[in-house]
């Protein structure tokens, strides 16, 4: 059974880096946004080659926690 994996790294200065593997296409971004919605400000989304590949997709997101910030 394929594995969908999201690794969320939160630094003590509030920086968040999210790595996504195993989720197809743009839905990997949606998945991250579902997790971080309303709680962090997304600074950038880096799409790797895997983002455009099927069936396995890798995506890296880097966000920073800001109180009350909207995505």
């Amino acid at each position, binding site marked *: 059974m394929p594995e969908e994996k999201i690794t969320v790294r939160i630094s003590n200065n509030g920086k968040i880096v999210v790595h996504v593997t195993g989720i197809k296409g743009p839905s990997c971004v949606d998945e991250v946004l*579902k*997790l971080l919605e309303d709680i962090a400000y997304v600074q950038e989304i880096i799409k790797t080659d895997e983002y455009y590949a099927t069936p396995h997709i890798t995506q890296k997101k880097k966000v920073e*926690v800001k109180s009350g910030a909207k995505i």
Partner: protein
Amino acid sequence: MSNITRAVIIQSKFHDLECVFEALEQMGVRYSRVGTQNNYRVDIPEYYLRFECRGNTVYAVYDTENTRAKQFIYEFMKVYKKVLDEKLERLHLEELKLHEQQVLAEIAKQEELRRRAQKIKRRRLQLEKARKREEIEMRREIEQKKKIIVERAKRLGYDIREEVHGNEIVLVLVRRRQVHR
């Protein structure tokens, strides 16, 4: 025959020109000055003597047999000494006054420096306190956001593993996807 003799050794050199002239003025003696700026003489005809001035040194020149001249020098010595002592005392007091002013200025300066140092320290402590509070609030904020992420991940069907790597919290979210053929 017996006697009692009182005598006094009189000075023949005086080392402060200014005091010599002040003493002469105080004694109300009439004198005349002859010569150049650095080498001249002061004639005092009334007492048959003269002062010869070379630089700042004044030599009394008179006939040693002349009692009137010797008596004058004796009186002059007393006035000269008084003038010099008064001048010395005045300068000493002036020096003390200046020293006192210097000390007061130094205290004022030290006080000003101490006040500035206190002000800087107060501001530094204020900023350190602010930073500390912000760090605590950020930790609280991170903890709160982490809980939200964990709750959302659970709702989305992920298994969650939490790790701490140094100053970093790591959430590993894993979900097994069913493959439909």
